[in-house]
């Protein structure tokens, strides 16, 4: 049987043509392009086919294709505006900015279904994970995380108390059609704080074809006996083709996880997420309403809650986990319960100025922490509510000559508060901010130049409880600054692409850095805020070269250098005597940091069914003022994966076997005073092997995608430097995962 793969690229900037509908006359069938602008059509016969391409913002195109065996064809499509001077109606929040960017598409996301978002993103070069054991992870981009990266969930800046190292992003990956990571400072478009990079979580476009479609995902994990189920369905009305909606729901429940030889006490998880979207879309205007609810409950390993420094040392020196456990789904103290609600309203319209977009978002993040208590009282000791309103108005203006661009305003209002009688953790504050930005892009022949400028103002009003009676003292902070970016791309041919970007970014110190005053049980240390912190200021330069030789070979090399002045970090101070004994104290201080690094990925096709991918990354993080290394930076790593895939017959398609190996070096670039700050030294290097097999079974035209994966195949005992539980326990052992994905589509040709 023959197959045809179409790749649709825009004539001028080679960007993927997406979303677009490809209609094959002879088959009387329509297909949608994916994010790469690709469509794969199976079960064809050799011969001539007439292809019609139609996509909003693009000129319609008709092309005749000759299919002979496995055929790949590239079709060039023009932007509408180049001929009609009309606006591109492209619903893409990630419309940057010449910037190093990597993406996990739907296929990759579903292949990792059930994992946390941070865990999935580790697949990208330059992205690592900061974790608290196996169940709680945060993405790290080029060594930066939490306050230094921005997440955009469905076009809305995610505000889920991301400053905390033990606060994982409250996003359900099942809702995403793609997750992109913009590596390096990208403040101009995405706002202050995006010093390390931006993560864009994009849901799929609602289809324009009438009828029902959707997908069911199921996964089972052996290690913690976790089950995950997720369902999404969408419908476009036949009578009102502009109106469409989508609903989604995910449920996940896991028990105690296992490290080689032991169960890890109290590490159960439970997650319930759902969302609904309604969209009304016409060619020149439209709107969308989106609501999502994310809720998670997770146990924290009981042994990571220590009383004092010597308890911590005892736990570290113990060859086995100090708290023994059997398998259980029960979640006890210490535990977290987090609920995140998001309401988003979006309107768009075009006029003679260009395409206007308005996105309003309201988020409510409610975090409850249940501490270990002497006497159970059924209450949480921390009840933090963070409410955020965001507003973005963006005009993608019409081309003026060869110049095309975006101008917009951003506004944010935040209210953070705890409940009366909570333990002190982060003070009550209100924050307001506003920004103006302009990004212009000039394209000519093989060159694209882009420049952007942004002005931000940010206000904080903080009520900090102080002194013996914990009286609230009011503080006000006003910050404002410019950020800018300038980038060039040179694309001499389909094969080569050169890009260089320079940018500035800044971020204001966050409430935890200014006012923290608390004990971290997991590290037996007291962290103290610093009310006189200044904003961090970043200057960066990023160069990327991409090469691709059809499907045979592709390579992507990025090098970057970033100076961050007033870099905020925790500096060890004097020990403090408390009723529980002595504790180390750490205070937020500032220094000048300088980060240099590189990301490399290579893809090679040995023959048409066998591919290998090599990925490597390294970051060198210096403290310039002290001429020393920075603490807690990801170590060098290298990963190699090889995949054999083939269609095994009419019913068995896209079958594959894949083997992944990952080697993570020991972090040896540590500050001279490391032993004062931390104990023990960073853990040893480790090698992990993962394997998976899978296939798509067709029952008539209905596919069932099945896969079986094993992570940590060798049941390796290892610890990771960026895991806060490295003091206490190893990383999870072998995990066997079975996944089923059943897409359904009742939209074809109806």
């Amino acid at each position, binding site marked *: 049987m023959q197959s045809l793969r179409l790749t649709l690229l825009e004539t001028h900037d080679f960007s993927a043509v997406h979303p677009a509908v490809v209609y094959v006359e002879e088959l009387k069938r329509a297909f949608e392009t994916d994010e790469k602008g690709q469509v794969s059509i199976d079960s064809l016969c050799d011969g001539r086919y007439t292809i019609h391409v139609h996509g909003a913002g693009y000129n319609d195109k008709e092309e005749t294709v000759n299919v002979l065996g496995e055929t790949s064809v590239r079709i060039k499509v023009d932007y509408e505006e180049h001929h009609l001077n009309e606006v591109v109606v492209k619903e893409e929040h990630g419309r940057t900015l010449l910037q190093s960017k990597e993406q996990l598409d739907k296929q990759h996301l579903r292949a990792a279904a059930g994992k946390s978002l941070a865990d999935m993103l580790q697949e990208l070069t330059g992205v690592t994970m900061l974790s608290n054991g196996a169940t709680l992870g945060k993405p790290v981009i080029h060594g930066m995380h939490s306050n230094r990266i921005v997440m955009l969930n469905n076009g809305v800046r995610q505000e889920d108390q991301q400053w905390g190292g033990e606060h994982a992003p409250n996003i359900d990956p099942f809702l995403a059609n793609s997750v992109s990571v913009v590596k390096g400072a990208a403040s101009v478009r995405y706002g202050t704080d995006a010093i390390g990079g931006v993560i864009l979580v994009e849901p799929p476009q609602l289809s324009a074809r009438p009828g029902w479609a959707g997908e069911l995902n199921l996964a089972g994990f052996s290690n913690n006996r976790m089950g995950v189920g997720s369902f999404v369905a969408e419908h476009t009305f036949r009578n009102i083709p502009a109106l469409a909606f989508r609903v989604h729901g995910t449920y996940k429940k896991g028990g105690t996880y296992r490290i080689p030889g032991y169960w890890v006490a109290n590490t159960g998880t439970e997650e319930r997420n759902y969302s609904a979207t309604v969209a009304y879309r016409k060619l020149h205007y439209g709107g969308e309403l989106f609501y999502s609810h994310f809720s998670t409950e997770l146990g924290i390993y009981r042994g990571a809650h220590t009383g004092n420094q010597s308890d911590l040392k005892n736990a570290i020196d113990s060859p086995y986990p100090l708290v023994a456990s059997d398998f259980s789904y029960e979640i006890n103290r210490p535990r977290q319960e987090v609920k995140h609600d998001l309401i988003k309203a979006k309107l768009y319209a075009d006029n003679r100025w260009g395409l206007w977009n308005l996105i309003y978002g309201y988020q409510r993040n409610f975090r409850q922490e249940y501490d270990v208590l002497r006497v159970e009282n059924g209450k949480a000791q921390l009840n933090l509510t963070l409410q955020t309103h965001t507003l973005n108005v963006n005009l993608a203006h019409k081309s003026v000559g060869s110049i095309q661009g975006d101008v917009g305003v951003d506004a944010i209002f935040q209210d953070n508060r705890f409940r009366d009688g909570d333990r002190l953790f982060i003070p009550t504050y209100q924050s307001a901010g506003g920004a103006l930005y302009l990004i212009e892009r000039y394209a000519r022949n093989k060159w694209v130049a882009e420049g952007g400028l942004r002005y931000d103002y940010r206000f904080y009003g903080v009520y900090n*409880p102080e002194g013996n009676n914990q009286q609230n003292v009011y503080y006000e902070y006003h910050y404002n600054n410019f950020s800018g970016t300038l980038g060039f791309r040179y694309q001499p041919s389909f094969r080569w692409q050169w890009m260089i970007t320079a940018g500035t970014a800044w971020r204001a110190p966050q409430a935890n850095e200014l006012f923290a005053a608390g004990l971290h049980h997991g590290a037996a240390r*007291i962290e103290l805020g610093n009310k006189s912190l200044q904003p961090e200021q970043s200057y960066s330069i990023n160069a990327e070269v991409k090469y691709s030789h059809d499907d045979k070979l592709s390579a992507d090399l990025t090098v970057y250098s970033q100076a961050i002045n007033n870099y905020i970090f925790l500096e060890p101070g004097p020990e403090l005597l408390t009723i529980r004994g002595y504790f180390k104290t750490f205070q937020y201080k500032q220094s000048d940091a300088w980060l240099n690094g590189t990301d490399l990925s290579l893809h090679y096709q040995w023959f048409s069914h066998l591919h290998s991918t090599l990925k490597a990354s390294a970051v060198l993080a210096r403290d310039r003022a002290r001429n020393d290394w920075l603490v807690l930076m990801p170590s060098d790593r290298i990963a190699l994966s090889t995949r054999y895939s083939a269609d095994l017959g009419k019913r068995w398609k896209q079958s594959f076997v894949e083997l992944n190996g990952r080697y993570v070096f020991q972090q040896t670039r540590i500050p001279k005073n490391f032993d004062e700050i931390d104990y023990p030294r960073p853990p040893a290097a480790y090698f992990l092997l993962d394997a998976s097999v899978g296939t798509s079974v067709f029952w008539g035209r209905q596919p069932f995608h099945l896969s079986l994966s094993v992570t940590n195949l060798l049941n390796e005992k290892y610890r990771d430097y960026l895991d806060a539980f490295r003091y206490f326990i190893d990383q999870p052992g072998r995990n066997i995962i079975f996944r089923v994905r059943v897409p359904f589509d009742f939209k074809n040709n109806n």
Partner: protein
Amino acid sequence: MNYQFLNAVMLTATIATTFSACKKDDPPTPVEQELITTLRLDVSGENGFSKSFSYKIENGFGGGLGGIIQIDTLRLAPELTYQVSARVLNEKENPVEDITTEVIAERDEHLFLYHSAPATGAGSITFSNGSTDGQSRPFNQTIIFSTGTSGTGTLTVHLIHAPSDKSGSTPGETGGETDVEAVFPVVIQ
């Protein structure tokens, strides 16, 4: 303009106004959870001897660095036995909160540990007849001190929460979490 489109605009506006309603209430006040400030040893002996020795530290939690520190010296006579009752208090509360009752109620999950340096001879204290918990395991909230000959030393008292092995005699052996670590200077004369 289309009806649905108008609807969406209206809904957006409604949401925006509903949620932006300004709050004027007072900011909340935090409370240190289950705070212990003091470990007190109520010591009684022969000839009507009855004294209390406190180890009180308000430092460290709830953001305070410069809290009150009061450490009494345990002054006892040589080669005598004393009945000792360990009390844990929150002296930030008024009236003072006696947490001992809670600890006794949860005695299966708690353990007092006593450690003398030197362990024997001049300036030492040895320990016996500690009280037990509901499962006849050590609890040691009340205990007998037997003093050595004249000299000086230190007495360390731990209150351990959720020990994994109650038969241990140091926090390293018992596991669990240290709620109190009190180090008293000892003078026996």
